[in-house]
């Protein structure tokens, strides 16, 4: 195995009352897309902020392309590109003006800057609208320019923090395709998301983060094996006055591994779930519940998260 381009080593971030990141460690190989998957507030952005030298780790370190984020932040900043979750652009400037400004912040100048601006506009698919103010762009277009800024100085590692939040499916598809295309060109990507499907599509290896801890790490196959052959069953219900009693009854059924009830939704992990559906429905009906929807999924990352935390990933 080659030397990792990024090594997060027992990273901690403590605030006055919150221990936001509690000892996260992982490696990323050159040319890999590595995803950090977890719900909002899990510690993904804090982790990526420490790796981007925005936050100083309370403990631990990260080595990126041989440079420590603690000791040699300037060298780290030259090899990383950052795409924040927010649209970190100047709305009063045009897309081209934004790119020129950010290029200068990466010490680009002259013909090279001009060339990189045109190339990144091409990647974003916005060359023909480069002279429009960013404030007039759609959400998806802004996201694409947001990514383009992170690519200007041809970084070795690109950090993308939830880059598809709040955009339409078409723009989301385009961004995912762009990430895959950039990776094919050799770019290493650290991608954070709370969308299981994105992590599953983009990454070979995934780290699952919850409450500031890395609770699982591996390939998708390795992770799904954690839940065995269990299916994930989502049942939308109403009229349940005593959920604890219902959960106790469901947990007593054979082949039901975990059962959780939140926000009028019942989440179960069960082996061969389809065979047990009639028993499950019977238990719900007996508890006074009315079923609104039922969905059975093969083992996936959502099931892994449920298996590891007892909660749904979207929460």
């Amino acid at each position, binding site marked *: 195995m080659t030397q990792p381009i990024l090594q997060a080593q027992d990273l901690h971030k403590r605030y006055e009352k919150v221990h936001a990141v509690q000892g996260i460690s992982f490696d990323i190989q050159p040319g890999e897309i590595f995803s950090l998957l977890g719900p909002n507030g899990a510690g993904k952005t804090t982790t990526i*902020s420490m790796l981007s*030298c925005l936050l100083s780790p309370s403990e631990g370190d990260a080595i990126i392309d041989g440079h420590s984020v603690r000791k040699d932040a*300037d060298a780290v900043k030259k090899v*990383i590109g*950052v795409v*924040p979750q*927010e649209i*970190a652009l100047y709305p*009063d400037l045009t897309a081209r003006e934004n790119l020129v400004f950010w290029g200068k*912040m990466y010490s680009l100048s002259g013909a090279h800057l001009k060339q990189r601006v045109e190339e990144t506009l091409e990647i974003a698919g916005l060359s023909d609208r480069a002279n429009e103010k960013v404030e007039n762009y759609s959400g998806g277009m802004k996201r694409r320019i947001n990514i383009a800024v992170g690519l200007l100085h041809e970084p070795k590692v690109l950090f993308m923090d939830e880059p598809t939040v709040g955009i339409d499916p078409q723009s989301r598809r385009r961004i995912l395709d762009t990430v895959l295309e950039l990776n094919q060109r050799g770019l290493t990507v650290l991608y954070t998301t709370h969308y299981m499907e994105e992590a599953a599509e983009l990454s070979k290896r995934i780290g699952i983060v919850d409450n500031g801890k890395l609770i699982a790490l591996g390939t998708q196959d390795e992770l799904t094996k954690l839940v065995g052959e269990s299916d994930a069953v989502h049942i939308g219900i109403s009229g349940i006055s005593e959920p604890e009693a219902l959960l106790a009854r469901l947990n007593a059924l054979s082949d039901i591994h975990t059962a959780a009830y939140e926000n009028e939704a019942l989440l179960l992990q069960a082996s061969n779930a389809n065979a047990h559906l009639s028993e499950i429905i019977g238990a719900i009906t007996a508890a006074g519940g009315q079923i609104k929807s039922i969905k059975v999924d093969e083992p996936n990352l959502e099931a892994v998260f449920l298996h590891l935390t007892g909660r749904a990933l979207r929460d």
Partner: protein
Amino acid sequence: MKTLEIAIKDTLTRFRDWKALAGMLAAPLIISAMIGLAFGGLSSGEAPLQDIPMALVDLDQGELGQAYYDVLTSPDLETLIALERMQDAEAAKARIESGELRAVLVIPAGFSDNVIPDNEGNSGTASVELYTDPAASVSPVIIKSIVERISASINTLLLAGQVSGEQMAQYAPLLGQEMARLGEAIGAELQSSNFTFEDPPLGLEVVTTGEDEEPFDPFAFFIPGMAVFFLMFSMFEGSRSILQEERRWTLQRLISTPTSTWQIILGKMGGTFLTGLLQFAVLVISSSVLFGVSWGNSIAGLLIMVVLTVFAASGMGAMLTAFSRNENQAGVVGSAVSLVFGALGGSFFPADGLTGIVNIASRLTVNRWAMEGLLALTVERGGLADIQLPVLVLAGIGLVTFVLALLVFQKRFVK
């Protein structure tokens, strides 16, 4: 270099914002124009040029004193001058101070006796005294011109020695019938005498009452006042943009680039400074063109005052922003401080008359020192020597607030 790029980006962004431009440039000019017009219009603040109120104090009670009166009340001048006789010169001058009169002509006692030769041809010299209103710029010039013309005419008659009534008559349309008759009388008297003059016997002494000052131009006060007032607003607003960048995450993105925090903060503060400099420069030029405001005779003094006023204002804005918890708080505090500074610091009315604790509070504002320096140049026509204290204080305010802001921002953004 990156610092400059950030400063230029901020300035460009600010000057592209129409709302910001309205606050920075249009508002001070419009408000100044409205106040200026309310305080006396675009001219010098004088009433229309007719019935110019004037008094004649004739202590001479002789022929020449009467001659001045006759000419000033002649039909040719009756619509121009509203003349009244007064006995007390001091009381007449007091009425100039109170604005009731534009001019007072005092004919001293014994004036005619001194000037008109006696039977042996002996005569002396004497002067009339003309007092004018310093707040008016046009009417004193007209009155002075008329009095000079009357005096010159009398001089001519006295110097000529022999002037016939017929000869004088041809000048009647110019001098008025009264002057022509006076000339005829003096000429007849002089024909019987034998005398020579070495000096003109009659002099005119023009005195401007009150302090020797330029007429009050409301624009010369209100334009600098409004310029400083709105500068404070835009400096607070500009400084606030660093917190806006934090909210938008462009600040975090800047920190993630190979750009030091010092460069970023200095760039942001530099952008506010550059914006203020351009704002003030545009106001100086546009007020000169639009309202004919004179910014004084010292270009170097004006440059120094503008640079240091903007330096102090932007430093104050940066410091208050640095200590604000968030963008909203900075906005509220900035607006409040701008208003208080404007009111206390003399942006709306001269702060010279303030006393006690209000005066002390006034002297803690950027506006007060900026106004003192600027008015020393615009109203008092002073030079570098007259703005030393404001220059020192503004430089001190700017330096202290800038350094404090830099340190606080640095601590705040390096986490």
